[in-house]
């Protein structure tokens, strides 16, 4: 019900204004790194100038001319192509099964599926490092893929679960009562209906994999350096302004991903 003019005493109005400003400042604080990165990415000098005097694309150019960076991009891209569909697949099947079955340990299984979100990534990293070393996969692309899938899986499970919760189960029972097998029902009735959740999960998986670094640092080798790992080593060891340009690209990709997620299942439900 709309309140046209609320009766607010002057002291309270001041307090409200103050809260609004405080809130705004917090958002500016959150925005600060983004602004800094864009400033630096387009700055002609190695260090950002404020206020900016000129715009330049030299760091973007340097990125595309650098063999190291392009190699890292290639590795990240490959991983993306492998991890995204696999995560979407595992996440969808697991979320569906979890939503349709009832058994004693269901809550435990659900917690397990979501646990990589809560377990410190340093612990995940070291556990995987140990196991993968044992089977000779440490430092390989496969090992990295496994790590990425593990970290991204909870997101896919969550988004698909949200989608599943919003569809009418009677559609499935109706399909099966007409003689369709559960598998047929799943592929022809359920899947089309939960497409938004699957797409959102895939977007999360892609974004997570592309930006994953905390677990990846344990699983990379000189031949399998991903973009974020490359950024890490560069920051750690040298100073390369190309990192700014790379970061700017990452941020743009993040906003695009955000729009995609909002269009599919909506941001508020996804988080």
């Amino acid at each position, binding site marked *: 019900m709309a309140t046209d003019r609320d009766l*607010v*005493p002057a002291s309270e109005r001041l307090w*409200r204004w103050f*809260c609004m400003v405080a*809130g*705004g*400042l*917090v*958002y500016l*604080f*959150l*925005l*600060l790194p*983004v602004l800094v*990165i864009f400033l*630096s990415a387009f700055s002609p000098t190695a*260090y*950002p100038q404020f206020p900016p005097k000129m715009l330049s694309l030299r760091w973007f150019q340097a990125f595309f001319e650098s063999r190291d960076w392009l190699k890292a991009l290639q590795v990240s891209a490959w991983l993306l192509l492998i991890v995204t569909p696999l995560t979407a697949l*595992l996440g969808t*099947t*697991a979320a*569906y*099964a*979890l*939503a*349709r*079955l*009832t058994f004693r340990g269901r809550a435990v299984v659900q917690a*397990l*599926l979501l*646990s*990589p979100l809560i377990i*410190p*990534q*340093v612990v995940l990293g*070291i*556990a*995987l490092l*140990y196991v993968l070393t044992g089977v000779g996969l440490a430092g390989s692309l496969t090992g990295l893929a496994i790590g990425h899938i*593990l970290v991204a*899986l909870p997101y896919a499970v969550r988004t698909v679960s949200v989608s599943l919760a919003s569809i009418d189960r009677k559609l499935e029972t109706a399909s099966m009562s007409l003689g369709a*097998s*559960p598998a047929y*029902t799943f592929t022809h009735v359920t899947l089309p209906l939960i497409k938004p959740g699957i797409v959102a999960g895939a977007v999360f998986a892609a974004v997570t994999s*592309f*930006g994953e*670094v*905390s677990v990846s*640092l*344990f699983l990379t080798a000189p031949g399998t350096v991903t973009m*974020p790992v490359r*950024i*890490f080593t560069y*920051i750690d060891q040298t100073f390369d302004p190309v*990192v700014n340009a790379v*970061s700017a690209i990452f*941020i743009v*990709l*993040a906003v695009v991903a955000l729009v995609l997620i*909002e269009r599919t299942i909506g941001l508020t439900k996804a988080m």
Partner: protein
Amino acid sequence: MSRVSSPGASLFSWFLLAPGMLFLAAFLVVPAILLVVLSLHDVDGMLMVLPGYSIAQYLAVFTSSVYAHALGTTLWVAALTATLCVLLAYPAAWLLVNTRSRSWRTVLYVILISPLLTSVVIRTFAWIVLLAQNGLINDVLRHLGLIDAPLALLWNMKAVVVAYVQVMLPFAVLPLATSLGEIPAALPRASQSLGADARHTFLHVVLPLSIPGMMTGAIIVFALAAGSYVTPLLIGGRLQPLLPIAIYQQALQIANLPLAAALSLSLLAVTATIAGLMTYVQKRWERRVYGH
């Protein structure tokens, strides 16, 4: 939740559950168990793992002052970060909930969520650009004539906490905003009708009812901060007494895996206990107020 009616459908669902379960078993459960086993071994002078079980690693973790200090600092930093995030989350969540314009609200959501979709190195790197000796802040301060020599803003714990807060703030704002949004509009009105001004209403009605969201945010931030190593490594430097950094160093640089394992599991245990306690308190409050 209703049971699937036919056994065929049930079987199919189990079949679908299998790949996910197998994956987790192979790459989460088994590694976890193996990690525990690894942590119970000792190493020799060449860092070769010795056969036979031993709690030498755990003794090293809990009796050495270095690691005990690191654990303490890690928990303290995590708690501080969680507290600061919760404090800053209130005005941010309030603004989000009270913005009437749909487009402005979307802008705020984008500002909140898009950082979460970039990489943590990038968010950390931005702080380096800001805080470095010839970084943005020093640049601006020098231009304004406020300082002569650049300030050493990096390589200390304060910078780490500031970066932590900025990186993890969205995790505190989102659940809090949800909680605030769920408070029925009639409640603040009822409070006002009984003679309470805005301040009293906030302290006695809004704040208590926002506790679930606040706690959720605090728990998430605490857990994230306790396990973080990339950010403190890049901003605070190698010498910061934080347990995740020690784990990273032991595992990848010193290659003492059993010790790294023991450190990890200790960190996990302590963090899980504290997070569990906080969750317990939250659930009890929710049960008292809402009955479930």
